[in-house]
């Protein structure tokens, strides 16, 4: 699978050998609650709550597309992100692009040329792991809409703490204390990373370790689907 890597800050740090604390690594994901089909004007919708982080997603498609945006061989995917407070700013636009690049290979766009798949995300509450909650909610909404998909994508966040521990599905407080937070998205086999977004300072080895550790968590999300 193609791998889209976006690293905001990667600094080569001489790190001392870190003992992996296996108990912490097996820390489970927060309790997930999902509702599908709650918006009746959308073709598909879902609300996902991971702990206190809550996101609602509405999907339209395949729908009519403006001539300027239409693609002759596949569907155009459009993502709109609405923050809880205030108007969308530049960082939300960047998030929209990241989400769009992650979702496009996931949807079978070749089945619907010259049409539009429109994904609208409303952030309801951010208590950490917002990106992974958003992507999982998008996957659920796409399934509710009956969009043909290549694979159900599973997104997992993990935070690398200053003492070397990995915390899965971090809350907002844990994210603030962490050295770095990595969100990785896996395809159905959970062996290939589809996309990865990291915020903070971490070495390539630490990134690899995070990605490897997230795989079992992604498998449990696939089970949830």
């Amino acid at each position, binding site marked *: 699978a193609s791998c889209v890597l976006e690293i905001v800050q990667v600094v080569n740090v001489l790190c001392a050998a870190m003992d992996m604390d296996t108990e912490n690594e097996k820390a489970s994901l927060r309790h997930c609650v999902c509702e599908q089909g709650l918006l009746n004007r959308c073709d598909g919708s879902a609300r996902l709550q991971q702990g206190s982080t809550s996101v609602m997603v509405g999907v339209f498609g395949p729908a*009519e597309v403006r001539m300027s945006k239409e693609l002759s061989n596949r569907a155009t995917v459009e993502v709109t992100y609405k923050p809880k407070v205030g108007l969308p700013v530049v960082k939300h636009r960047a998030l929209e692009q990241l989400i769009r690049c992650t979702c496009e290979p996931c949807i079978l766009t070749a089945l619907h*040329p*010259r049409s539009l798949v429109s994904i609208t995300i409303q952030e309801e509450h951010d208590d950490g792991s917002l990106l992974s909650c958003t992507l999982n909610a998008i996957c659920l909404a796409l399934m509710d809409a009956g969009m043909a*998909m290549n694979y159900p994508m599973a997104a997992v966040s993990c935070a690398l703490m200053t003492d070397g521990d990995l915390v899965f599905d971090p809350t907002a407080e844990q994210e603030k204390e962490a050295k770095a937070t990595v969100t990785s998205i896996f395809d159905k086999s959970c062996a290939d990373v589809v996309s990865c977004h990291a915020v903070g300072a971490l070495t390539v080895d630490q990134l690899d370790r995070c990605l490897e550790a997230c795989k079992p968590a992604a498998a449990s999300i696939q089970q949830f689907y």
Partner: protein
Amino acid sequence: SFTLSVTTPITSPGVRREGDQIIAAKSGILRHRPPVTYWIDNNQRRYVPVVEEFVIGIVTGKPSMDVYRVDIGGSMPAALSYLNFEGATKRNRPSVQVGDTIYGQLIVASKDMEPEMTCVTVAGKANGMGVLEDGLTFQSSLGLCRELLVAESPILAAYGKRFRFEITVGANGRIWLKSPSVSQTIALCNSLDSAGMLSTEQLE
């Protein structure tokens, strides 16, 4: 996904083929008709035009070059030529206005082309197709429409025992309903929406 050795390619709704494997592309119930036909039954609201399906559309555009634009709920409006009505000729044009409800059959529907529909069979007869007068058109899910279109559908049989009404079901999720009083029409519409979920005993 599971491995199946098949010699002929299968294109069926909700399922795609990757080499030897047949992989589900949508979420739903996997159905199997022996020997090798698999498909996914799902309940979506958005219609993707399929050729030879009967659909209910609403005329949205005035005829440009003698072709009406009909909204069938897909990504593109369908084209309906004014000659595709029973008894229509160049001099005898059908009386179709913008906003009319049309019941017709899709003759061209592929992912790359704009869909085209017709209101006559090959022999030139209408067979119930054409403009639907009065009545109420409403949108429901594709799954419910498929259930109603089944021959001797239990839902319609149960309703038919108690009420007098005329119903046309489009494969695109649209249902046209007409009954003697307005309140009865509305009541029937509301209950049909939830009827899809009920089992046979609950219907009674």
